[in-house]
C-alpha cells in the first residue's frame, strides 16, 4: 500500500494502537509488526510476499554458515550463494526482458534472426531495495563487520520493516537489528515529531511532486515532438524537483513513521540541490544507496588503492551499475555513466588544481553549485525520458536553444519556476543546517502553523494515491 492512501491511514492507526498498547509483551509487538509488514506488502500483490520469505530464509541461513565456516573458501562460497540468489531474483524479475531484448538485437546485428520469447513478468514492488538490504546482511557478516543476529524474528523484521520496505532508505543491519532487541526508551515528543515528519513527507509528495510539478514534467516528456528550449528546460527542472520531492517525501514519511514506532532510520537526503560538486551531491542524494555502493561495490573493487587508472575504472563501473540498479534500460546506464564521468572529471580536476582559496569564496561556491545543478539536470533528462531519442532531442534543444513546440501553459510555467526556485532556496539555506535544529529554534506556534498548513494542502490537493516514482525500481 502507498503512504498517501486511506488504507495506509487506517493500517497505520491500527499498528500504532497495538504497538503502544500497555501490557503487551515486546515480542508480541514485534510479531505484530512483522505480520503488519507482510500485510503492507501483500496489499499490492499477495503472492510476492513469498519473495520476502525467500530472501529472509536465504540470508538468515547463509549468514550463519558464513559465521561458522572454518575455511576462507567456505566463507566465500556461502557469501556467493547470497549474492547469486539475491541478484538472481532481481535479475529474473527486473532484467530478464531487458537482457533478452538486447540479446535479440545482438544476434540480429550478427545476422542471426532469433525471436525472444514474450517476457511478461510483473516487477515486484521494492525488490531492488530489499534484495540489497538482505544481501548487505550476509556481506557484513562475510566482511566481519557484524555478527549474525540470534533472533530470526528480529532478522525477519529487519528485512520486512514496512516503513522502508519498498523504497528505502536502504537500512544496514547493524543500524536497525539492534533496535529490535528491546523496547525503545521513551523520548518526549518523539511520537508527535514523527507525525510532523510524516506530514512534511506527504506535503513533499502530494502537494509539491504530484500537484505542482508532475503535470509539467509529464506534458514535456510525453510531448512526442521537438520542443522549444524553454519548455525542454522547464520540463526538466520540473522533473528535477518532482523526483526529489517524491523520493525525499517517501523517505521522510518512512523516517517519521518509524519514529512513531520508536525506531530510528538514517537520513536519505541532505538538500542535494545545494551540492557543490558531484562527490558532495552523492553525499546528499539517496545517501543510503550511494554508501551501499561505496561499501559493497566500490571498495571491494579496489577503490582507490590500485592506482589512478583503476580508481577511475572503479568509479565508472560503480556508477554504471548504480544506474542500472534503477531500471532495465540503457537510459539509466547513460544516467549512471554521466554521473561516473562527472565524478571522474571532478576527481581529475581536484587532483590537478589542489586546494584553492578562490574556490571557497561565497561567489565561487554559488557558481559551482549552479554548475552542479545544471549538469545534474542534464542527467535527469535520460532518467525520465522513456526513449533515448526523446532524451537526446531534449538535451540538444536545451543546449542549443532549439526551436520547437511550446507545450506548457502559463500556469505551469509559473508553478514550475516558483516551485523550483523555492526548492533551490530551501536547499541553499539548509545546506549546512539540520531540520531538527531549525524546528527547535522556531517558536512552537510557527511549527504548529506550518504542520497544519501542510496537512491542509495535502488534503485539498486530493492526490489520487499516486505511486511513488521509486516504487518501480
Amino acid at each position, binding site marked *: *500500500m502507498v503512504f498517501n492512501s486511506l488504507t495506509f491511514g487506517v493500517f497505520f492507526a491500527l499498528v500504532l494502537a497495538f504497538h503502544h498498547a500497555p501490557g503487551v509483551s515486546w515480542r508480541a509487538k514485534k510479531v505484530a509488526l512483522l505480520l503488519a509488514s507482510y500485510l503492507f506488502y501483500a496489499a499490492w500483490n499477495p503472492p510476492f510476499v513469498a519473495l520476502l520469505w525467500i530472501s529472509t530464509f536465504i540470508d538468515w541461513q547463509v549468514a550463519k554458515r558464513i559465521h561458522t565456516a572454518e575455511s576462507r573458501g567456505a566463507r566465500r562460497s556461502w557469501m556467493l550463494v547470497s549474492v547469486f540468489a539475491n541478484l538472481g531474483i532481481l535479475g529474473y524479475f527486473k532484467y530478464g526482458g531487458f537482457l533478452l531484448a538486447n540479446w535479440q538485437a545482438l544476434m540480429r546485428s550478427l545476422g542471426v534472426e532469433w525471436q525472444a520469447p514474450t517476457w511478461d513478468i510483473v516487477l515486484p514492488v521494492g525488490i531492488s531495495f530489499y534484495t540489497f538490504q538482505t544481501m548487505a546482511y550476509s556481506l557484513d557478516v562475510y566482511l566481519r563487520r557484524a555478527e549474525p543476529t540470534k533472533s530470526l524474528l528480529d532478522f525477519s523484521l529487519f528485512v520486512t520493516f514496512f516503513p522502508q520496505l519498498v523504497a528505502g532508505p536502504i537500512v544496514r543491519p*547493524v543500524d536497525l537489528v539492534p533496535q529490535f532487541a528491546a523496547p525503545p526508551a521513551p523520548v518526549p515528543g518523539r511520537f508527535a515529531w514523527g507525525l510532523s515528519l510524516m506530514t512534511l513527507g506527504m506535503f513533499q509528495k502530494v502537494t509539491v511532486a504530484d500537484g505542482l510539478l508532475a503535470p509539467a514534467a509529464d506534458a514535456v516528456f510525453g510531448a512526442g515532438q521537438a520542443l522549444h528550449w524553454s519548455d525542454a528546460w522547464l520540463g526538466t527542472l520540473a522533473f528535477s524537483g518532482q523526483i526529489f520531492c517524491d523520493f525525499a517525501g517517501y523517505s521522510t514519511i518512512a523516517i517519521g513513521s518509524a519514529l512513531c514506532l520508536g525506531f530510528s532510520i538514517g537520513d536519505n537526503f541532505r538538500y542535494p540541490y545545494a551540492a557543490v560538486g558531484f562527490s558532495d551531491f552523492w553525499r546528499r542524494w539517496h545517501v543510503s544507496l550511494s554508501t551501499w*555502493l*561505496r561499501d559493497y561495490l566500490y571498495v571491494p573493487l579496489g577503490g*582507490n588503492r590500485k592506482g589512478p587508472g583503476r580508481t577511475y575504472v572503479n568509479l565508472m563501473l560503480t556508477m554504471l551499475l548504480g544506474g542500472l540498479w534503477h531500471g532495465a534500460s540503457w537510459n539509466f546506464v547513460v544516467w549512471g555513466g554521466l554521473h561516473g564521468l562527472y565524478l571522474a572529471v571532478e576527481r581529475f580536476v581536484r587532483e590537478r588544481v589542489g586546494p584553492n582559496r578562490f574556490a571557497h569564496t561565497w561567489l565561487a561556491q554559488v557558481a559551482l553549485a549552479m554548475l552542479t545543478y545544471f549538469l545534474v539536470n542534464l542527467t535527469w533528462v535520460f532518467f525520465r525520458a522513456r526513449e533515448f531519442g526523446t532524451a537526446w532531442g531534449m538535451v540538444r534543444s536545451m543546449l542549443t536553444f532549439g526551436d520547437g513546440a*511550446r507545450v506548457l501553459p502559463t500556469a505551469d510555467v509559473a508553478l514550475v519556476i516558483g516551485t523550483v526556485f523555492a526548492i533551490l532556496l530551501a536547499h541553499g539555506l539548509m545546506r549546512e543546517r539540520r531540520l531538527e535544529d531549525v524546528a527547535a529554534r522556531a517558536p512552537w506556534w510557527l511549527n504548529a502553523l506550518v504542520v497544519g498548513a501542510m496537512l491542509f494542502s495535502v488534503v485539498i490537493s486530493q492526490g489520487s494515491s499516486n505511486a511513488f516514482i521509486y516504487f518501480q525500481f
Partner: protein
Amino acid sequence: MPSSTSSSEPKGLGSPQQHSPLRDVPAGPWPRIAWAGVLVFALLLGGWEAYWRSQWFRPSYRNSDGLWALTHERIASEGGRGTLIVSSSRLLFDVHLEAWREETGQLPIQLGLEGTSPRPFLSQVARETNFSGLVVVGVTPPLFFPPPRGERMSALALTKQWSPADRWSQHLSMRFVEPYFAFYDPDTALFTVIRRQAWPARAGLEPRMPRVRKLSTTRITRQNDMWDRVERDPAYQKIARDTWLAFLNAPRPNVPPEVLKKGFEQLLAEVGEDVRRIRARGGEVVFVRPPSSGPFLAAENGGFPRERTWEPLLQATNAVGIHFEDHADLGDVELPEWSHIRAADTDRFTRALVRHVRAALVAKGTPREELGR
C-alpha cells in the same frame, strides 16, 4: 559518490554503536505543536468546505475509476445476467437507473464513462467476461466513430489488475469521506482550481482545449444527475456551453477519405465481432443514440451523417437501434448545455427508452426477459 569512496578512509560499519542512526527530537512542546497543528488544519478545512458549499457543491460520490470497477464487478457477482450500459457521458447522465428498475425489475449495471469511447469497454465485456444479458451501447458520434480515445480509459486497467490496497481505499473513501465532504470533488482539487484561473496567454502556445468542468453528481449506483448549477446558474451554464464550443470549433486533422473508410470498416468488423460473441452466449446488444441539441447536434449530424454511420452500424451488427430523432418522446427533453438531459427529464426519458427498446426487440423477434413485461 561521496568523496569518502576513498577506501583509505575508515570503512565504518565496525560496530552497531558507530553506525546507529539514532535521531534526535528537536526541543519543543511537540505534543502541543501537533494538537495545535491539527486545530489549524481543522479550521482551514472547515473554511474550505464552507466555501465550496457556498459554490453549489454538495457531498456526493466521486465518479472514480474505483467506483466504476466496483460496478463492473456486478457482472460477475450477478452471474453475467441483467442489463449493462456501456456509453460515454450521455447514457451515463440520461438514464435514470431507478426508473429503469421500476420499468424492468432490474437495476442496470451502469458502466458509462464521460468523454470516453465505449468501444473498448464493449470489447472487454464481449471478450473478457461471461456476460449474457442485454448490453445497451450509447452512441455519441464524435466519440463512438473515430478511433477509440478518452479521458477515462484508465478504468479499463482495473478489470485486469486492482490491488487489494486500492480496493480497500475505495471502500474507505466511499464509507467515510465522499458522503460527508463537498470539497472532495475533482473540480475543487487545489491545483485544478489554480490551473483553471485566467492566466495570461503564453506566446507561441497552441490553443488548448479547456478542461470540462463539473457537470453531474454521482450516486453510489453510478446514477449521474446533471448538477443543478448547470441548469440554474446561467453563468455556469455558459461556461459549459463555451467548453463544448471550443471542442466543436477545434481544428480537425485532415484524414484522407481512404483512411477514414478503412477505419470505419475496421470499426464495423470489431463491433460486429463483439456483438457476435455476446449473442453466442445468449446475450443481445442494442445501440442507442441519445439526444443532443444546438451546435452539438448540428456538428454531429454534419460530421457523422446518420446514413453513413448509424445506419451502417446497425446493418453490420444486425442490431436494434433507438435513435432519438425517430421518437418524439425521446427528443422532448431539455438539454441545458446541448449534450445531456437535465435531471428532471431523465425519469421520463428512461421510461420511454425502455418501452422503445422492448418494442423494437419484440418486433425483431428477440424479446428479452431483462426488460420485463
